[in-house]
């Protein structure tokens, strides 16, 4: 009981003695872990560089401004590539995500014991690994270029889209499905009439949401050689051409802002 008797008076406490002790111990452990982490980071850091950081930052800023505006003429194609990587990657991912989602959803999976775990494994493994790592891997396999970027984005997005989609499938109204089944419809017809219309809004929302994220991710894929504007960024960084870097970062910022605006508009139109 949180009410305690202290020298004859009833004192209300939020927690009992044991509870509050438990809380303190938890906090103590948390702080100890954080202190350990911080100590590790600080050990691996050359503090001289850190104290020097403001000067270096100022130095980089001086060299990066003004951005090299005329460089924009060479960025047209990389921007186009970036857009393609994001869009085609998203489209491929959606095509793959739909069957995976149907196999993973409890109410549509053909077998809960065998197929559902496999579908979930696909979802978890593709989702846990960043698209840059997928790009690294694909470059090792199929060589550098835009194609590797498209595939990397596609694989990374499959799990993400399939997860959101299968959650939407599990939330559908089952009586509508029952009604279509009762008419004597085949399995595929039940999907097309009973399930598809119900998940369409979620599907459209997921597609636009992921496309927005993919625009961001595809701008940096070039850092590992998978095409797009990141290639120029990486090349400019290697030769320390800071005015070019500044311009590229501005372009990426613009792309991110525009894609966010587009996806917000489209989502508004759908819902």
């Amino acid at each position, binding site marked *: 009981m949180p009410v305690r008797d202290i020298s004859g008076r009833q004192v209300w406490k939020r927690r009992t003695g044991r509870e509050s002790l438990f809380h303190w111990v938890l906090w103590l452990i948390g702080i100890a872990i954080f202190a350990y982490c911080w100590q590790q980071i600080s050990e691996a850091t050359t503090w001289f560089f850190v104290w020097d950081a403001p000067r270096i930052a100022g130095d980089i800023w001086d060299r990066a401004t003004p951005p090299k505006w005329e460089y924009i003429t060479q960025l047209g194609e990389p921007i186009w590539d970036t857009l393609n990587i994001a869009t085609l990657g998203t489209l491929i991912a959606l095509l793959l995500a739909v069957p995976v989602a149907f196999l993973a959803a409890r109410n549509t999976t053909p077998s809960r014991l065998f197929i559902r775990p496999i579908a979930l494994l696909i979802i978890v493994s593709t989702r846990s690994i960043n698209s840059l790592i997928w790009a690294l891997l694909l470059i090792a396999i199929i060589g550098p270029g835009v194609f590797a970027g498209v595939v990397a984005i596609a694989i990374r997005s499959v799990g993400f889209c399939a997860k959101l989609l299968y959650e939407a499938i599990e939330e559908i109204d089952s009586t509508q499905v029952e009604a279509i089944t009762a008419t004597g419809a085949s399995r595929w017809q039940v999907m097309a*009439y009973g399930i598809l219309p119900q998940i369409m809004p979620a599907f459209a929302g997921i597609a636009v949401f992921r496309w927005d994220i993919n625009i961001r991710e595809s701008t940096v894929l070039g850092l590992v050689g998978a095409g797009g504007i990141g290639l120029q960024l990486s090349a400019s960084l290697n030769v320390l051409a800071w005015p070019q870097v500044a311009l590229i970062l501005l372009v990426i910022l613009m792309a991110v802002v525009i894609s966010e605006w587009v996806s917000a508009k489209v989502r508004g139109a759908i819902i």
Partner: protein
Amino acid sequence: MLRLEKLTKTYKTGDQALKAVDLVVPEGQVLALIGPSGAGKSTLIRCINRLVEPTSGKVYLGDVELTGLSSGSLRRERRRMGMIFQEYALVERLSVMENVLSGRLGYVGFWRSFLRKYPQADVDEAFRLLDRVGLLAMADKRADELSGGQRQRVGICRALIQNPALLLVDEPTASLDPKTSRQIMRLVCELCKERGLAAIINIHDVALAQMFVQRVIGLRAGAVEFDGPPDTLTPDVLTTIYGAEDWEATIDKVEDEDDDAPEAAE
């Protein structure tokens, strides 16, 4: 025409929803299934078209034994049984017309239905049915734009366009106001008469059932407790079905209101 033999359903949880129910429904008979919540009314109806798989027992529709059918032939037989649902169960994001036409799914192939290319005869029939229930003007509206009563009419059209021999009606009025409830019940019974359909109607409202149907089945705890014409439903019978309560008022109400619905007297 419909025959249930020792139909039993035991759920995985161990609940026995149906205990060896025997029932024969002749051609063209409209019967009401009454009973308290949990008596197994919904389960009974769903066991007939096997939306719920019965544990044991047999269901015959005409000469066909439904309980033994493979999924392909079951789909063909389901076309002969139209179903109407409590919460309408329309596909809300499809148009009224698509909802009605979805009753033909058992007759058309996948791609035809996917591309919405139904045979002209189906389309005409859909328009006729919508006209019959007074919703022709709503054909291209989305189902979720309609009111409850309108939605249930669309549900009726969807069941009828299957060209069924039997209607399975699950609590058609539970989500409707009293006036609309009566209109819907009247519509269902009229349409059954016009087309000579048999129907099993699950219904909570005893008075409403007595007003419209030819036969009443009382179900309690998964077993048939009463089977007879509506005017033999006495307070004693209702007590055995539902438990003790003052039933006079319920039955009286029917007699008072009988003249409201002269066309349903038979």
